[in-house]
């Protein structure tokens, strides 16, 4: 009986040791909910993992939180969309090797019948003013994400302080949930096109794009590695492997080939290889 127990224990221990020895390399990628919700990672990561054998674990939070997580060294690489915040974090020495990767754009979506009559308006600030003047509900991410940062900069341009207003709902959640809440509340919201296209049919949203194409709504995504000088335990080599792949011909091609089920391309690759900041 005792011998049997001993053998069992040895077996278990051996399994542990073997599994550790053969464990695949994993890196932690901190990214945004809008990227995750669009389904991009399920499309590109298998290609990368197959090529390099490096497994990528994605943590999806708002851009602001993503940068904070990277600063604290709780991730190896960040893939976010708030250029100014990213460049600032690089300048402060928390991240290195930032590259532009791809872009899409933001759109303003609202109820199908567009009660604020935004359709036909050309500028996002004009649209925001109309929402404010009519007191139509507007759902804000309110989570310091890239989308939220963009939205706040638009409100600032209009000179309106929306915080605390009755028609302004701050939800503090991801993009897909924010769209869902806007749909239920018959409200307007600002969303990235990728999440909108991915969700509108799946969730049967009774909403339409009421404004698109304003240059103010351009949405640039960037990737950067956590500075290994700040955090020694970071898997810098593997993180750089991911970054270099993302901006390589193959990586860029994989991003371009990601389409929703109607064949719309969701992200436009625009990396300038070897031109990191």
């Amino acid at each position, binding site marked *: 009986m005792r011998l049997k127990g001993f053998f069992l224990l040895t077996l278990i221990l051996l399994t542990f040791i073997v599994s550790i020895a053969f464990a695949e390399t994993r890196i932690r990628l901190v990214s945004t909910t809008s990227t995750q919700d669009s389904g991009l990672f399920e499309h590109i990561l298998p290609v990368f993992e197959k090529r390099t054998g490096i497994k990528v674990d994605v943590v999806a939070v708002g851009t602001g939180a993503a940068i*904070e997580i990277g600063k604290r060294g709780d991730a190896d690489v960040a893939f976010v969309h708030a250029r100014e915040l990213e460049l600032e974090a690089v300048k402060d020495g928390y991240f290195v090797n930032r590259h532009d990767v791809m872009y899409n754009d933001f759109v303003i979506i609202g109820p199908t019948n567009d009660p604020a009559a935004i359709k036909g308006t050309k500028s996002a600030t004009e649209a925001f003013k109309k929402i404010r003047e009519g007191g139509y509900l507007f759902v804000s991410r*309110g989570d310091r994400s890239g989308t939220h940062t963009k939205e706040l900069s638009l409100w600032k341009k209009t000179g309106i302080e929306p915080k605390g207003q009755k028609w302004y*709902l701050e939800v*503090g959640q991801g993009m897909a949930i924010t769209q869902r809440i806007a749909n239920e509340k018959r409200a307007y919201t600002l969303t990235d096109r990728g999440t909108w296209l991915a969700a509108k049919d799946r969730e*049967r949203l009774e909403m339409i794009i009421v404004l698109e194409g304003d240059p103010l709504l351009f949405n640039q995504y960037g990737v950067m590695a956590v500075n290994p000088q700040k955090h020694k335990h970071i898997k810098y080599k593997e993180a750089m492997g991911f970054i270099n792949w993302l901006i390589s011909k193959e990586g860029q091609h994989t991003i371009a080939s990601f389409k929703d089920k109607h064949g719309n391309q969701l992200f436009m690759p625009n990396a300038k290889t070897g031109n990191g900041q």
Partner: protein
Amino acid sequence: MDFIIEGFRKAFILILNLDAELLGIILLSLKVSGTALLIAALIGIPLSAVIGLKNFPAKGFIISLMNTFMGLPPVVVGLFIFMLLSRAGPFGFMELLYTPSAMIIAQTILAFPIVASLCHSAIVGVNPIIKQASMTLGATPFQVAITIIKEARYGIMSGVIAALGRLMAEVGAILIVGGNIAGYTRVMTTTIAMETGKGDFELALALGIILLTISLFINAVLYFIQKKGIVKK
């Protein structure tokens, strides 16, 4: 380590300053959980008395069902209520999703099995002599039930308070059906989840401390009630 100490320091400052936003969040938590508990108790206590005192087919099955539902995962309840209340769902026309009412509905469902099950145990645990005595004295079935509920009051209160503890700490269901809208459906637990996600630990910590304090208070009351019940016996 520094950021933990700093977090606690700022959290205490926030609690001391108790601004309108923080107070609103705490009050909404109490309102939602309190209302849900009240509804669950109003239905659960009479129902548990009926189940405890009457004999009928499938009684054992119903009791097992109640006990199982005590451990109902909040996210599953949230998902279920979400599907019912969504615009695409059967009750979508009522426009209840992402309102405090939806949160109360979800929490009532979570509280109900706990209240019913623990009250049932308390009622079954009452000395059978009391039932016999009151019947001998000519009490109607309703009067018997009232007498027994009175006798089991400490156990019943324990059940109700245990349910309150679960509701106050719950986040899964109310986040899904409430939507965490600032100043409207944002409660303590959903704020903690959100602020942690944002990387803003001070407010999360402050609310965590307040939540624990309320929890401690609830449990102190529970202990007091239970002790009184034991002494009396």
